[in-house]
């Protein structure tokens, strides 16, 4: 009887020893949970349509929300501002790069979430763009950052704090910039094609035929036609680029920006041939 009692005690002790780390772990995880739930107010920032590409000098919509966290007594929201990268050439309705999202301060209780109306950023008007037009047209795709700042007051102790949130977006170049590059490429291409025969004509100086002609046309005509072909062909190509297309162009354009446009313009004649094969009679 005594022996079985001792065995029972031993078993209980072993059980206790085994259970201690498990209990400690459980207690620890409960503590960790508590620590994890102590959240500060946060600001959330996103594009209204994340699938829509962000293009320089084109309208964009941004959505902002404030989460009050679980600070006791809640928070007083003093300011919510959105800083828009100036390089995007967009502005809010009041023409500023820094948009205030609230018209008056407000309070949020513990655990509240407030969604603000989307910020509609409009492309700047052309008349306000002269200073930065060249920079916009030659923009190379890169990341830009929207920054939202929340200034809040902890209502329990009146301390004022701030919280920020960045939204990095891949900004694409404007198709107008690409087309500008294409026009320059087409012009260069036209010059190059015309300058080559002109060189041989100049070498025959003193002969009877003094009017420079290429294939029976004057140089000016040849150049204008070449440029016109390039301009139209690249315009069609750039419009096709805006949607998914399976047309294989003679030159692969990996980056659709001003410099990609120049490349396309240089091969304007070939681009025309490809397009003509696909869409021609």
């Amino acid at each position, binding site marked *: 009887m005594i022996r079985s009692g001792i065995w029972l005690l031993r078993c209980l002790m072993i059980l206790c020893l085994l259970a201690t780390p498990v209990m400690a772990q459980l207690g620890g995880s409960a503590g960790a949970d508590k620590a994890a739930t102590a959240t500060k107010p946060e600001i959330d920032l996103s594009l209204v349509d994340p699938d829509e590409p962000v293009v320089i000098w084109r309208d964009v919509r941004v959505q902002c929300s404030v989460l009050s966290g679980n600070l*006791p*007594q809640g928070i*007083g929201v*003093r300011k919510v501002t959105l800083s828009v990268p100036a390089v995007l050439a967009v502005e809010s309705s009041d023409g500023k790069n820094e948009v205030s999202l609230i*018209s*008056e*301060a*407000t*309070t949020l209780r513990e655990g509240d979430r407030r969604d603000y109306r989307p910020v509609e950023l409009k492309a700047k008007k052309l008349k306000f763009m002269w200073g930065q037009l060249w920079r916009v047209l030659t923009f190379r795709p890169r990341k830009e950052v929207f920054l939202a700042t929340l200034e809040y007051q902890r*209502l*329990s*102790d*009146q301390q004022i704090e701030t919280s920020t949130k960045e939204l990095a977006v891949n900004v694409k170049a404007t198709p107008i910039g690409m087309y500008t590059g294409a026009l320059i490429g087409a012009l260069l291409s036209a010059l190059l094609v015309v300058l080559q025969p002109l060189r041989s004509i100049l070498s025959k100086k003193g002969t009877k035929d003094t009017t420079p002609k290429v294939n029976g046309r004057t140089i000016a005509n040849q150049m204008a036609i070449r440029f016109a072909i390039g301009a139209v062909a690249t315009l069609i190509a750039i419009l096709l680029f805006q949607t998914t297309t399976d047309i294989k162009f003679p030159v692969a354009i990996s980056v659709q920006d001003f410099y990609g446009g120049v490349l396309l313009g240089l091969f304007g004649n070939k681009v025309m041939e490809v397009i003509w094969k696909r869409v021609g009679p």
Partner: protein
Amino acid sequence: MSFSGRAFVVVVFACFLWVPSRALSADIQSCEDIKRYLGRPLPGNYYARIQDLKAAEEVLKSQTNLPSSECPIWLIERTYWEYGYALKEFSRNFQDPSARQRWLATTAEAYKDYLSWFESLTEDQIDRLVMSVTQAKKVQNPEFPAIRRTWLRERVGNVIGALGITYEDRRQFLGLITEYQEIGDRNYDKYALLFPNQAVQNWFKYLRAMPEFAADKNDSQIRMSLEQRDVAGAWESFRDFLKGYIKANPSVRGQWTPVVTKISQWLRT
């Protein structure tokens, strides 16, 4: 419709568009902004109101040394008063005692700012203030002194009473006594007329419970507590204040004269 008629319609329409767009923003940076802000219904959200009025108060404080851009006196008074009132109302929202205490402390500071601004006014400025808010003329108006007294008792007296309540709510009874004592000592002549009788009664009530503030003491207990120098000093200040108060408010003579006599007896012994 003639051209001038159409132009009139366009101007009226533009005004309608302009007014709400201004009303959305409370960006206060000048006296004109404050005037516009106070000229329309104040935000129902007291927190928003506090932030706006705080901004307005900062504008007023920054312009104190700029006589060229002086704000009208009624605008300053209203701003200080509304700020204290909004804080008082907002502090009622809090169930948590520590948060409530902090907001009440801010309210007390706002009321103190109001009183220190009021103390800085000359008699002539007070006259101008009363004339602008009551629309009463001072010249050849035998009723003006009564109008002035009534308005000041209601308005400034209300602030004095509310300041005491912020201390009571925080259970800082010694703070209430000290604050009233300082107000009385600072500008005895001005305040003797303005102290509400309820505030004087509260002052007396908490003096009787000094220094433990556990319960009202009887006369012999009070006499014993007077052995402490700070307690005796507090009673002495109260008695001196009462003397002026009775003189300025004859209607309460019957209530306070026996108290003055009794305090004098306690202090002699």
